[in-house]
């Protein structure tokens, strides 16, 4: 903000002098570059625009001035600053009038006046009102609606006479304008009255020499037009020209064009061709550098004064210049329209962009939220899947565990039964007979006759038989009496039922060296499940007719090999399949190593190696 104030103060300090014009533009540029238009304080922005507009107007750069005025006006309207809006409109209407957009100028002036009418009639308000009336007067004068012009000039004059401060020069200006309107409407007497009023001021020649020269010329021209000159002409013209020439600045040399034209006209009228031509060419030469209506007028004058080809040439030039001027005017007017249109367009564009941005923002937020939600849902679903999978695994594991437990129970039961049987056998068979034999021998103990001895030897033989029986029982106890109930039997049952259901043959090679009792339940469960899963995969994908399963132990490494004669598969393609994944995770669980060998149409061999113990 401080920066902004600094820049604005710089702007204020700049005078309108031509020498500093370039500098002005640099400042203007720097203000624009400084990102002035991003600043939210719209009042300040509008003020800056207004100031820039004024600068451009004083530098006679109509289109740039118009651009900034227009911007300022928009903002002032928005913040409902009627006074500022009105003075900006005034600036615009002046530019429009200068560029001959008279209708536009009229419209804006009228609007500015009506805005000012809403306000309290302060000095400033009245001052701008009078300026606006003056502008309207000039506009109508140009439009050759002289009554209107005179009406507004009078209004302006009336207002100006009530203003405070030094109003002399501005009143003189208005009077001059009013006189001009009278002159153009051929009311020469009234015009002469007003001019005389201005010229009455003896100080004017010193204070505003160029203005004095202008008024003097106008006065002389009115006299000339009214045909009431009594020897004052061409002295009045010459006096005015002398003043202009003596001033020797841009404004006075510009003014001298008209004076020269008037002189040429006068001398032409008096049939003094040489003088007429002299002044006409002078007017043309000076006006050439401005390349505007004055040049046009000069050319027209020359074409009247000259004769023959020269006149024709001048007329041709006149027509050409007239065309180009008209074109230029049209261009300027178009430019104004374009500025207005472009600004509107930019604003609309801005609105559109901001709306788009808003939509974009809403859309991106929506997308972010939805994608986040989708992400949540997906992860949740995956998690659920995983949990479900784990649960299923656990359930199946439990199933197998129960299977093994029940198998274990079977073993226990069988053991108990066997124990009972042996006990029964010992009790009923052996013990009873032994008791009977002992009792008999006891009773026979006393006898010594041959018969008794014979009987005794019979009983001793009986003891031998009992001995044999005991040996038999002992032998039975020593052998593995429980069969069909180990882990390998569970596997056997599994392979048998699965292969039968899937309809292929199987070869199961086991090794009795494997101590299944030592292996953990976890390992057993996983091996069971791996075999089950493999058989399922073979059934689903391999089209095999034979499956070979073998268990082996070598150097503390337990090795399970499952091979089929099926169609095989591309290992890279199937790597991520559920079946293989399951087997993999199970092998990892028991810290084993999995190798898969597969060849198209030759079958697949899965080898799992686990360290025992």
């Amino acid at each position: 903000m401080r920066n902004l104030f600094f820049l604005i103060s710089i702007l204020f300090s700049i005078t309108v002098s031509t020498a500093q014009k370039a500098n002005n533009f640099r400042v203007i540029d720097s203000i624009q570059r400084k990102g002035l238009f991003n600043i939210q304080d719209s009042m300040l922005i509008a003020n800056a625009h207004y100031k820039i507009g004024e600068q451009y107007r004083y530098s006679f750069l109509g289109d740039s001035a118009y651009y900034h005025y227009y911007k300022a006006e928009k903002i002032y309207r928005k913040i409902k600053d009627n006074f500022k809006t009105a003075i900006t409109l005034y600036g615009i209407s002046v530019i429009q009038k200068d560029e001959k957009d008279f209708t536009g100028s009229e419209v804006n002036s009228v609007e500015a006046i009506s805005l000012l009418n809403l306000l309290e009639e302060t000095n400033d308000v009245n001052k701008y009102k009078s300026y606006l009336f003056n502008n309207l007067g000039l506009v109508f004068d140009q439009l050759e609606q002289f009554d209107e012009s005179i009406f507004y000039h009078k209004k302006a004059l009336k207002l100006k006479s009530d203003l405070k401060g030094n109003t002399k020069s501005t009143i003189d200006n208005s009077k001059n304008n009013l006189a001009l309107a009278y002159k153009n409407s051929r009311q020469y007497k009234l015009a002469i009255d007003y001019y005389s009023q201005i010229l009455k001021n003896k100080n004017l020649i010193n204070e505003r020499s160029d203005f004095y020269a202008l008024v003097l010329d106008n006065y002389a021209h009115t006299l000339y037009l009214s045909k009431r000159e009594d020897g004052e002409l061409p002295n009045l013209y010459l006096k005015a020209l002398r003043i202009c020439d003596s001033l020797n600045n841009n404004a006075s040399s510009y003014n001298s064009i008209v004076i020269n034209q008037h002189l040429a006209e006068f001398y032409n009228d008096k049939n003094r061709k040489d003088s007429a031509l002299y002044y006409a060419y002078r007017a043309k030469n000076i006006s050439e550098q401005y390349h505007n209506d004055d040049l046009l007028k000069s050319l027209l004058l020359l074409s009247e004064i000259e004769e023959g080809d020269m006149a024709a040439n001048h007329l041709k030039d006149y027509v050409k210049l007239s065309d180009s001027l008209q074109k230029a005017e049209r261009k300027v007017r178009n430019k104004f329209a374009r500025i207005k249109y472009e600004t509107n367009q930019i604003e609309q564009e801005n609105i559109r962009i901001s709306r788009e941005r808003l939509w974009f923002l809403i859309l991106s937020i929506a997308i972010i939220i939805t994608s986040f939600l989708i992400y949540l849902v997906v992860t949740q679903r995956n998690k659920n899947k995983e949990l479900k999978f784990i649960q299923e695994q656990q359930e199946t594991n439990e199933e197998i565990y129960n299977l093994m437990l029940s198998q274990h129970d079977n073993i226990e039961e069988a053991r108990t039964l066997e124990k009972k049987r042996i006990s029964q056998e010992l009790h009923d068979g052996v013990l009873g007979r032994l008791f009977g034999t002992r009792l008999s021998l006891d009773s026979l103990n006393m006898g010594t006759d041959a018969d008794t001895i014979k009987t005794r030897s019979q009983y001793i033989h009986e003891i031998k038989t009992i001995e044999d029986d005991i040996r038999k029982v002992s032998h039975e106890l020593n052998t593995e009496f429980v069969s069909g109930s180990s882990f390998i039997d569970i596997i056997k049952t599994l392979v048998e039922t699965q292969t039968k259901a899937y309809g292929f043959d199987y070869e199961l090679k086991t090794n009795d060296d494997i101590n299944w009792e030592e292996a953990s339940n976890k390992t057993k469960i996983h091996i069971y499940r791996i075999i089950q899963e493999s058989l399922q995969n073979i059934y689903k994908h391999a089209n095999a007719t034979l499956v070979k399963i073998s268990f082996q132990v070598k150097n503390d490494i337990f090795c399970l090999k499952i091979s089929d004669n099926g169609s095989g598969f591309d290992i890279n393609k199937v790597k991520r399949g559920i079946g293989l994944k399951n087997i993999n995770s199970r092998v990892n669980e028991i810290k084993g190593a999995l190798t898969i060998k597969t060849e198209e149409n030759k079958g697949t061999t899965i080898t799992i190696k686990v360290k025992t113990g």
Partner: protein
Amino acid sequence: MTEHIKILMIDDHPMIIEGYQNTLLFTKKENQELSIDIANNCDEALVFMNKAVENNTPYNVLFVDISLPPSTDGLMQSGEDLAEYAREVLPKAKIVILTMFNESFRIHNIIKTINPEGFLIKSDLTSSELASAFQAVLNNPPFYSGTVNKHIRITIASNIVIDDKNRKILHLLSQGVRTKNLASHLGISTSAVEKRKKHLRELFSVHDGQDETLIKNARKEGFV
């Protein structure tokens, strides 16, 4: 004068019956005349008993083994049932129980239900003991073998009195039956079993709450 003694020997082991026969024949008194019937199972025993009742030739002495194959009609499960039946149909017969069982619970039950004239445990039976038992049963019953006497003495000497259910609990526990299965064996609820076991633990001053200790203490006191 000649004393005629009618005997029925019931045992599923012919060898044992031979042993009994040998012993009795060798050791009988001069004036004693033995007529011995042999039954190898419950059915045969029933046939002999019923015939004796029918002919009015009752047995004087019955040698009954406890563990016997059950009768075909299932009514007689063991020697115990046979002995009971004999008491009913042959009230004058002297019953001698000969069994391998030496557990306190069985001994107790047999004395209670049958009150036999002779009670011999096979494991500590000798021929001379059988002979003297035979004579004692005929003339001066009862005759109990050493193990039975020891059991009776301990039970009487002990201050502990327990009912049949608790006795059975101790017996079953000693057989290795688990507590959770006791209820079905006894026909009572699990909580009732728990209550009884608690009572038993107090009776046998078991402090660690273990069944093993309970059985050990009960055995010491002669209840198992």
